[in-house]
């Protein structure tokens, strides 16, 4: 194991209290993310692929320092998304709860400030989010939805690419607060 990989696995992620968001940002940022998801595609349709609430959840989970706040945060964002959708409430809630939980768990092991790790995690959790939502839709609602893995991979890469500057921006907000 090289020094780099050892540091990736053992270095403690951001857990300083000073680095944490203020409560207002915890509310405003996901709200903006949800709004952007329902509002922006009206005018820029190709941005519909952007899953900003998921990226916000992942970022919060990676920086929250514990799985429990992360899973509740993910659950809250997911439930808001559900509220603005035509699906039963809880679908996005479950998926984002799992994403928050696992992202927070992963953040204990990796150096999430590394861009490569951030990119991979963002891509992985996007794929996981989409796939698990598809599974739940088939299993719980009986919907015969198709799952386009190739498209999901591409969209995952795009979301991961967006995640890099977005996470940096959120980190700055966090520092500023």
């Amino acid at each position, binding site marked *: 194991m090289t020094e780099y990989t050892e540091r990736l696995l053992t270095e403690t992620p951001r857990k300083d209290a000073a680095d944490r968001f203020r409560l207002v940002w915890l509310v405003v940022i996901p709200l903006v993310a949800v709004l952007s998801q329902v509002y922006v595609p009206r005018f820029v349709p190709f941005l519909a692929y952007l899953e900003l609430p998921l990226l916000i959840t992942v970022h919060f989970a990676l920086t929250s320092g514990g*799985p429990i706040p992360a899973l509740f945060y993910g659950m809250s964002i997911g439930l808001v998304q559900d509220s603005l959708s035509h699906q039963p409430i809880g679908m996005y809630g*479950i998926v984002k709860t799992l994403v928050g939980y696992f992202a927070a768990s992963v953040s204990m092991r990796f150096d999430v400030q590394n861009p490569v790790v951030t990119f991979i995690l963002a891509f992985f959790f996007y794929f996981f989010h989409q796939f698990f939502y598809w599974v739940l839709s088939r299993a719980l609602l009986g919907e015969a939805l198709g799952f386009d893995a190739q498209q999901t991979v591409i969209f995952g890469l795009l979301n991961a690419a967006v995640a890099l500057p977005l996470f940096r921006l959120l980190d700055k907000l966090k520092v500023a607060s």
Partner: protein
Amino acid sequence: MDFFLSRYRHLTVLLIVITAQLLLIAYQVKTNKDIPLIRVWAVTAVTPVEQGLELVRRYTWGFVEDYFVLLNVRGQNEKLRRENGQLKIDNNYLRSELSTADRARALSVFEARSPSKTVAARVIGNGTGANSKVVFVDRGSTSGVESGMAVVTPDGIVGKVVDAYPTASLVMLITDPTFAAGVVSQKNRVHGTLKGQGHAECLVDYVQNEEHVDIGEWFYTSGDDRIFPKGFPVGQVTAAPNGKSFKEIYVSPSGMQGGVEEVLIVLQGVHQEVPGGEISSPAYTILAAPTEATAQTPEGAPQPGALATDADRLRAIYKDVGVEQKHTYGEGVPGSKPPDFTKIPSIHGVPAPNTAGQAQPAGQTKPGQSQAGQAPVGLSQPGQNQPAPAKTVAPKTATPVVTKPKPPAAGDDTDDEPVAGSTPVPRKPAPPAAVRPNVPAPVPDNNQ
């Protein structure tokens, strides 16, 4: 248990949260009910912000967008204006094509229904000369066109052919100053000579001041000129003041309204009645001049004073047939064999009726094609001005009767132009009309 919860606290919370949401979904799916509270909260939280965003967008980006849209509108306006102009040009072209098609169809209908034999032609150019009103048409001598032929349209006469070349003909329009044609008015049957004036209107000359001609009255060709068949419309009177010695009757030619593009050249004209006359035309009850054949009465034939009419001559023919075939008229029972009228001897200056193309058997002559007072028995139409006694046969002598089995003229479309009395018109300077009686209708013996 406590150990488990403390050891797997995170996992336990996760399971609880997931289970709670699963139950929530299960409840919604099972009861088909929604959780309005959560949705109301979410929507209430999101939509005001959304409205605010929309308001901001409308007054910022929307304004900018409208500005650029308006910039584009100017360009689009120019583009649409150009397209509109092009479409107008296309529209005019298509209208012109449609109008041409309509005229061609009208011409075709007229050609089919006219008893005269005609050929359609298209004006392809104007003749030279400042005052001359002549045009070239695309039919020439190869199409059977000859000099002196009448040129008409369904609306009226147009002119006459003055020169026929192999592939084209030169047509003098009726507005040409040197043009002249015999015309007759519809209502008062006033005869005159139509003359071109070099402009849009024509003059009807040689009408006495005492004659009465109404404004708006129609003039038709009279057939006197032996070029235009009788009965073709010429035009309406626009003015008819008295002149020094003759009336100055101005006629607006109906055949040239809207220009002349497609015309019909009358290869073989057939006279028609002038429609709607209140006074019967005496001009066409006059018999044609006798030919030499009729002038040289054979020996033994009744004297001209005795055979003053065609009926008398035909009666003499039948009498001779009866003598030759030893048949006494008025004898025999109904159904007995009549004399063979196909073996009429050429006597009394009358050729044998079986001469090809010279006559039609009785009963086959087109109704209304014999002139007034000349129709044989059984051919007269109700309303014609001659009585048709059942036992007499009145052969026609006034004009040649090479009747053409054609439908009535296009002018009959309005039902105001009966074709009774149609006769072919000799185009060239008129040879005297041959006295050639119609085929006499055989009269059954029992009717004698």
